[in-house]
C-alpha cells in the first residue's frame, strides 16, 4: 500500500517520472564527490601546508579551528574571552529556554528581554574589577546576538507605543507617527545604517561623541519598531470589541481595559509574527558590517580577507558561519511556533 503510493507519486505519469529520474541522477552524480570533498578527502587540522596540498579536492575545515576565536569573538581582547562567551551564552540560553525549556507565562518574555540587557554591562566592563573594553572591539557572535536581542527589547515598547499612538484621536499625532512608520518601512536598512553612521553625529551637541555601536543600535531599534508597530496595530484592530464593552461594563477604566484585557491578549496573538520579525532582524544584523562593526559576517571578512594563506579556504569558513545563522533561525522559528501554541 505504502509502496504503491510511492510508486504512483514518483512514477505516476510522464512528467513525474522524468522529474524523479532527473533528481535521482543528479543525486547519484553529485553526492559522492560532495561526500569526498566534505569528509573523505577533507583536512580537519589547522595545517595550512596540508590544506594547500589538497588543491581544493577536499575541504580544509582546519580554517575554522585556526580562525575560530577571531570569527566568533572578533577583536575582543583574548585574555577576557570568557566575557563575550558568557554574554553569548546568556542570550543563547534565553533563546534555548524559550524554545525548549519549561519557561512559561510572564517569565518567558522577561528572560528574552533581560538577557541582552545583562550581556551589555558584561561586555562593556568598567565595574567590579572588570576592565572596560571599548565598543569598537566588540564583535563576532556576541555582537550579532546582542544587536538582535537588544534591538528587539528596545523596539517592542516603542512599537507598542506607536501602535497605540496611531489609534489616537489626535490627528497631528496620528499623522506624525504614520509618517515615521512609512519612512522607516520605505527605506532599506543600509540607508538607515548610513544615517546612523554619518548623519546622527551631526545631531549631538559639541563634545558629545556617541560610539558607532550605540548609534547603530538606535537605528536598528527605530527601524525594527516601525515593523513591530504595524504587527501590533494589526492585532489591536483584530481585537473583538465585545471584550472592551464587557470590561467597561465591569467598571474597568479605559486605561485598565487596555492594560489588563486588551494588550496581554493582543501580544499573545501576535507573538508568532513578532518572533518572525526577530528572525528577520537576526539576519539583518549582518548588514552592520557595512558601517564597520564586526559581527559574525564582518568578523569572517576581517579574519580572512587580510590573510593570503587562509583566504583560499573562505568557502569552508563561510559554511561554518552559515550553519550558525541557520541554527539561530531554526531556534527562533521554534520559539515562534511555541508562542503560536501558547
Amino acid at each position, binding site marked *: 500500500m505504502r509502496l504503491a503510493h510511492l510508486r504512483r507519486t514518483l512514477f505516476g505519469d510522464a512528467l513525474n517520472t522524468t522529474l524523479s529520474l532527473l533528481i535521482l541522477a543528479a543525486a547519484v552524480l553529485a553526492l559522492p564527490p560532495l561526500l569526498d570533498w566534505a569528509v573523505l578527502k577533507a583536512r580537519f587540522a589547522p595545517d595550512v601546508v596540508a590544506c594547500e596540498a589538497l588543491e581544493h579536492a577536499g575541504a580544509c575545515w582546519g580554517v575554522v579551528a585556526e580562525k575560530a576565536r577571531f570569527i566568533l569573538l572578533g577583536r575582543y581582547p583574548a585574555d577576557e574571552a570568557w566575557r563575550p562567551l558568557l554574554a553569548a551564552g546568556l542570550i543563547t540560553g534565553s533563546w534555548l529556554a524559550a524554545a525548549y525549556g519549561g519557561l512559561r507565562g510572564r517569565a518567558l518574555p522577561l528572560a528574552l528581554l533581560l538577557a541582552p540587557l545583562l550581556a551589555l554591562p558584561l561586555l562593556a566592563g568598567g565595574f567590579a574589577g572588570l576592565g572596560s573594553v571599548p565598543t569598537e572591539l566588540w564583535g563576532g557572535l556576541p555582537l550579532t546576538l546582542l544587536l538582535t536581542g537588544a534591538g528587539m527589547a528596545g523596539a517592542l515598547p516603542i512599537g507598542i507605543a506607536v501602535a497605540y499612538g496611531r489609534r489616537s484621536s489626535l490627528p497631528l499625532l496620528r499623522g506624525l507617527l504614520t509618517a515615521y512608520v512609512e519612512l522607516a518601512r520605505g527605506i532599506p536598512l543600509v540607508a538607515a545604517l548610513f544615517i546612523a553612521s554619518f548623519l546622527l553625529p551631526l545631531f549631538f551637541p559639541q563634545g558629545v561623541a556617541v560610539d558607532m555601536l550605540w548609534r547603530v543600535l538606535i537605528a536598528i531599534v527605530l527601524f525594527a519598531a516601525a515593523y513591530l508597530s504595524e504587527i501590533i496595530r494589526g492585532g489591536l484592530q483584530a481585537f473583538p470589541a465585545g471584550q472592551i464593552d464587557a470590561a467597561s461594563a465591569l467598571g474597568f477604566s479605559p486605561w485598565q481595559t487596555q492594560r489588563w484585557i486588551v494588550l496581554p491578549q493582543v501580544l499573545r496573538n501576535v507573538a508568532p509574527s513578532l518572533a518572525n520579525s526577530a528572525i528577520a532582524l537576526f539576519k539583518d544584523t549582518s548588514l552592520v558590517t557595512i558601517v564597520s562593526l564586526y559581527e559574525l559576517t564582518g568578523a569572517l571578512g576581517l579574519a580572512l580577507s587580510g590573510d593570503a594563506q587562509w583566504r583560499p579556504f573562505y*568557502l569552508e569558513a563561510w559554511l561554518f558561519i552559515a550553519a550558525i545563522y541557520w541554527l539561530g533561525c531554526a531556534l527562533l522559528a521554534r520559539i515562534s511556533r511555541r508562542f503560536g501554541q501558547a
Partner: protein
Amino acid sequence: MTRRRIAWQALILAGLALLGWLLVDTTASRLQERGIRSGFDFLLEPAGFALGESLLPFEASDSTLRAFAAGLLNTLRVALPGAVLAVLIGVIVGFGRLADNPLVRGLATAFVNGVRNVPLLLHLLAWYFILTDLLPAADSALPLAPGVFLSKSGLALPWWGEAGWEVPVPAGFGIDGGARLTPEYLAMLIGLSLYAAAYIAETLRGAVQALPPGQRLSALALGMTPRQAFTLVLLPQAWRAALPPVTSQLLNLFKNASLAVAIGYPDLVSVAGTSLNQTGRAIECLAVVIAVYLLLSLLAAALSHGLERRGLRGAPA
C-alpha cells in the same frame, strides 16, 4: 474634550518645533566646525570618482547628479531582471513544494529552508567569492554555450556592438566582442533573485494551502483531474491572495539591492556613500537616497493597488 485635544496637539507641535530647532541649530554648528557647506549645488559639480560599471557613460569629471542617475540605473538594472527571475523561480519552487512527488517536494523544501535561513549578505558574499575566486581566469574561460564564456572577469555574451551582432571569441589573454556582465552584477542578480524566490515560493504555497479544502474536493467531484483542479480552481484563487505579499517581497528585493555596497556594485546607495565621503554632505546625499526609495515604494504601492483592482474585476482565468 475638544479643547483638551487642541491643547495636546499644540503641546506636541511646540515640542516638535523645539526639537526641530535644537537639531537644526546643533547640526548647523557641527557643519560649521567641520567646514562643510550645505546645499544641493554639489550635484552639478564634477563627481571626482569613477564608477565600476554604468549603463550611462560616466567619467569622474561628470556631475554628481549624473553619478546618482547612473547609480539609480544600476539599481534598476539589477532589481528589474532580478524581480522577473525571482517570480519565475519562486513559482516553480512553490509548485514543487505542493507537488505529490516526494523527491520534488524534498528538493523544493531544501531550497527554501537553505536559502531563507541564511542572511542575504552571506549569499551575496558567497556568490561573489565563487565568481571571482573559484572560476578560471579569462584566458581559460569556461565555454557555457556557443559564444557564451564564464570566467573570473564575468560572463561574456553575444550582443549588438559597433559592428552589429557580435559573438565573443577567446583572444590571447581575454575574450573579444559581445557584452560583458561583471562578477559584481552577476553575484547581485543571482543572490537577490534566489533569496526573493524562496520567499515567493513560501507565499504561494501558503496561499494555496489556505484555501478551503472543499474547493479541491468539489472540483474533483465535478470530474476534474487533480491537475485541472489545481490549475483551474485553486491557482486563480491563490494567486489573488498571494499578490499583495508577493508585491511586498519584490519591493524588498528593490530595497535589498542596496546591499550592493558590500561587494562593490555601484548601486544608488553605494554611489551616495561614495559621494558622501567625497563631499561630506551627509544630509543631502542621504536625502536623495530616502526620496528615491520613498518614491519607488509609492510607485509600487500604486502599481499593486491597480493590479489587485484589475484582478478582482476580471473573470478568473
